[in-house]
Each structure stands twice: as structure tokens, then as C-alpha cells.
């Protein structure tokens, strides 16, 4: 049984050292070391072959602003419910290297820990990748909730509203301009 609130609480307790970038603090933990530890803990095999762990190159290929989210992910998967479950490794790779790179540029790193909705989105998205349902929730309920929290959708709506607002202002400006100018031939009365 996976308690959602246990995972939310766990994520919020992410140590500060996970949030530091090695470039900012040379004594901080190396990101590849964190990822490798995460994969080994989940696999339950501390001698896990290096080929089964994302390489330094894979991490270096990612945009810099994605690394903090990956480090937070490493903290999430350090929870005991993920321990010794090697079948989850492909899902965790999917979450870290495909899902987070899309979301991370849209969310400031501290929001994953301090904004209730973003914390929940982070945890739920990780669980969905791992195909884990939380207590008493059906798959539909879980999907609905994640859908409601979806950052990508939210950004799209915001972008659309902002676009719509700008368009409206542009039309109003043009209207004022055109009202004062000649239009086009009128051929009959209306």
C-alpha cells in the first residue's frame, strides 16, 4: 500500500544538498553519483552494472536547469517503497530523462518542494511512470487528479489567455485607429 501523503511529505523533506548544483558548490554531491546510487538502491543490487545506470554523458547532454529536478527525483526514489524493485528502473529512467526535461524548464526548482500542487504533480507523475496506484485510488481517479495538476496544460492555458488578451488589445487599438479613418465603399443603405 502506497500512501500518497507519505511520499509528498518525503519529497518536501528533500535535503538542501540535493538542490545544490555542483557548479555552484564544488563540495556538493555529484549528480551522476546521486543517480547511480538511486538506481542501485531501487535495483537492490549495489553491484549493478554501469550499463544499467544512466551515464555521465546522458546527464551532460541535458540542459542545466533540468539537473535540479533530477536530483530531487533521486531523493524521491530513495524512499523505501521503491527499494529492491529492479522492474521500476525503466520507468524511473523514463521519468527522469523524458518527463522531467519537459517540465523542469517551466517550474522553478523550489516549487517542487514548496508548492503543494507542484509537489503532488511531481509525485503523481513519478508514480504514473512506475504504474503505481496510491491507496484507495482507481487509475481513472489518479489520472484525473494528475490531469488537473498538469503544468504543461496550465502553461498552455496561460499562454492562450495571454495571447487572447494581447489579440483583444490589438483589435481594440486597431478599432480606435480605423474608426477615425475612411473605410471602404458603401454601395447601399443598411
Amino acid at each position: 500500500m502506497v500512501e500518497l501523503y507519505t511520499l509528498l511529505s518525503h519529497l518536501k523533506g528533500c535535503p538542501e544538498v540535493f538542490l545544490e548544483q555542483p557548479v555552484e558548490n564544488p563540495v556538493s554531491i555529484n549528480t551522476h553519483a546521486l543517480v547511480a546510487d538511486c538506481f542501485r538502491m531501487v535495483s537492490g543490487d549495489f553491484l549493478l552494472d554501469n550499463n544499467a545506470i544512466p551515464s555521465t554523458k546522458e546527464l551532460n547532454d541535458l540542459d542545466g536547469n533540468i539537473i535540479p529536478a533530477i536530483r530531487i527525483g533521486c531523493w524521491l526514489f530513495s524512499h523505501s517503497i521503491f527499494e529492491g524493485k529492479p522492474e521500476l528502473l525503466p520507468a524511473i529512467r523514463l521519468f527522469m530523462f523524458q518527463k522531467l526535461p519537459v517540465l523542469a524548464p517551466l517550474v522553478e526548482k523550489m516549487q517542487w518542494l514548496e508548492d503543494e500542487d507542484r509537489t503532488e504533480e511531481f509525485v503523481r507523475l513519478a508514480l504514473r511512470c512506475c504504474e503505481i496506484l496510491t491507496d484507495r485510488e482507481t487509475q481513472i481517479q489518479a489520472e484525473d487528479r494528475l490531469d488537473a495538476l498538469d503544468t504543461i496544460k496550465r502553461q498552455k492555458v496561460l499562454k492562450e489567455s495571454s495571447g487572447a488578451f494581447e489579440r483583444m488589445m490589438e483589435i481594440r487599438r486597431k478599432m480606435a485607429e480605423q474608426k477615425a479613418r475612411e473605410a471602404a465603399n458603401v454601395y447601399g443603405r443598411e
Partner: protein
Amino acid sequence: MYMEGNNKGPQIALSDKERFPLIQDLSLLNELRQDHLAPKFNFMSGDRLTANSLTMVENYALEIRGKTEFWTEGKFPEWLGAFFQACLINVPFYHNRKGGFFNQPSISRDDIRKQPWAFVSKEADLNELLVYQTSGTTGAPLDVLFDPVSQACWLPQMQSILDLYGISIGDKARKVAIALICSQQSTLTYASLSSYLRGKGILKINLNTADWKDATHRVKYLEKYNPEILTGDPFAFMDLLELKPQIQPKALISSAMKLNAGVKAELENYFNVPVLDVYSLTECRNIAVAENGRHRSIRPDLFLEIFHPDRDEVLSEGVRGELVVSGGNNPFLSLVRYRTGDYCSLRMEDGIPFLIDLEARKQVTFYSLEGKLINPVDISRRMTKFPLAGFRLHQEASLALHFEAWTNEELTETLTLELLAIFGAVPVKVKIEKVGDGTAAKIVSYSSYFSETDL
């Protein structure tokens, strides 16, 4: 009916090159403007059509002229579903709508008045945006947005009407295709050309003698250019008739208000050509033409329905209610179930909708103390300079005026003086009502003892 000739009116702002992108030879334009008999034109106008937009007008003409079946009885036009889907996606006003077309609520003039920008399609090019401010003679003033293409499509719409009578435009011997005849205290007047009509002349003239160097020029100018088609409203045509011009138009097209049978007969007797009473709205241009006591729809691109006056319920064929229109070709005003404010029943005949017993905008007649006809357009225009949320004007048989205005300013004396300036020394009673939170739409309404009784 356009708000013109006041301090908020449009200013001349273009070059002839911008007015007529496709017409290189402007000699006819200069001739019409500079003729010694010409009126004192006070404005300039062009069709603004580029090669691409002219093609759009020509394609529209192909689409609507000669269309023998608009949609079959009990069904709906093929284009309607795609049009509605495009509105859902592209027109902000309809964004959050749910369900199909036939689940949609109606919209009203007030919806457009409050946020005209919400009806502009995302696909509309704002560089093409044009605005007409209606004077509000048949309702509250309204900004109607459109583009040169939808404006020029008035011409194929007119041609589709003339086609019914076997009339075509394009006589080589005549230089002017259309003359829009006005008879108002003041209005914008101009000579123009039409690219769609292969460079033919277009005139908008005012019969008011103040607009001419010599009163006799009104007839002489018209006789010299002998326009193929005359357009206007019944007021203007009645005034034209009094001048007895020796011209040979192929047809007269009357719109903006109902054409009474008596006036129609007089005009037909004099000119000996069809006098066509066209039902049109600024919001979607021409809709139908009177034919044997009813109105034949001329727009295959406008879907017509009849709604219950008080609720969104579609009424069956033959049941009288409010005419509701959807469609059109104006990307700046996409109409989905727009209540026209006019009443009729609908009957389909061989795929063509007919409006039965159309009760459109009534011709409201006012008289000055001297017995001169007053056009409500002139009253609306003069009232726009005052901060009125709306007004009602009624004239009694004694010529006395009752004017009720909604405003938060004390304008009793000012409005009385304005009405006296228009009507002469008739009894005037002005009542001012405060504009409260409960004031819904702007009201502009005219009524008169003389309406439709003695024209």
C-alpha cells in the same frame, strides 16, 4: 446606417493608390470628382481590393450567384458544421461552448456591442480591419467590424438579386454602375470606382441642396452619368422622385427600412423598372428581397432559423418568431445564431428559404413644423454628440414630441434646444432618466403617429 459627418466621424486618410490598389487609370474618378456639375463631395473612398481579395470576391460571386438550392427542407446546409467548428476554435466568443450547433444559445446585438473584438476570428488579418459605427436608428449604436472583401461582397449579393430579374451591370456606354442616393441633412459623399465592376464608377450623393453648387446640378449630374443602378432608402427615393430626373436606371434597390407599397408603385411608374425592397442588416449585409408579398432569401451562406422571441427555442416551419441568422463571410464578425430583432415565419420552397410576413425595421416618419419629413438617421446622428445611454422619441398627431433620455447629466434644456433645431417650434417634452446599474442595453427607439399611414 452609418454615423457620419460629426466630430467623431472618419477622416480622409488614404491615397488613391491605397483606395484602388488594382486600378491604374484613375481618369474616370477624376472626371466624376471634377465635373462642373458634381456635388461638393466631402469625402473619399475606395474599394481597397488587392488582387488576392478581388479573387475572393469573385469566388464568392461564383458561389452565391445562380445557386438554386440553399439547403433542403428539414435539413441544414453542408457548410454549417464546418463553420461552427471553425468558430469554436477560432472565435473567442464561442471558445467555451459545448455541444453541437443545434445546442447553441442565441446571441444578440448587445453581445456584439459589448465586445465586438470577441467575434473576430483568429484567422482574420488585423491589417484588413475596417470599422463602421452605426448610428443606432434601429437599435443601440454599434461598431461593426468587417474587411474590404466582405464589404465588396455586397456587389455579388446585389447581382444575385438582379439575376432574378435578368438584369446585368456593365453597359459599355455608361460610366457609373451604382449611385447611392441619400437625402439627409448631412452625410459623407464621394465619387469612387469598383475593381470588381471593372473600374466602373460608384457615387454616393446627397440630394440636400446644401451639398451642391447649384440645386439644378442634382438632376443634371445624375442625368449626365445615368447610373445603371440606384440604391438608397425610401426617404431618398421619394425626394429623388420629386426632382423628376430623366435617367434610365435598370433597377432601384431600396433598403434600410421597409418600402411601402405606395412608394414602390410610384417609383415603378416613374422609372418603369423593378424597384426592389431588400432586407439587410449592417451585421451581415443583404439577406432577402421582397417578392410577391414575402421575402426570398438571397444568401446561401446564411443559415436562417426562427426562434421563440423570449427563449432559445427553435420554432417549426411556418410558425412566426424572431429571425436568427448564422454564417456569412465576414471573418471579423462570426455569427452563430444571431437574433436579428426582426420577425417572420420561414417557408422552404425548392431549397430556398422564404421569409413570410417579415416585420423588419419600421419606417418611422416624423414631420417638422413646416411639414418637412425628418429622417430618423438625422436625429440619431445629432444625438450622438450627447452622453446618452439611450433614448426614445415619439411624435404625436399634433406634432408634439416626447423625448425620453437615459443619462446622468442634466441635459433637459440642451436636448430641448436640439430637438427644436431639428423640428422647428413644435411642443417638446424632455424627460431625463438616470442611468442605474439596472440599465441593460442601450435603447434607441422611434415611434410616430405618422408612421406608415400617409407616405
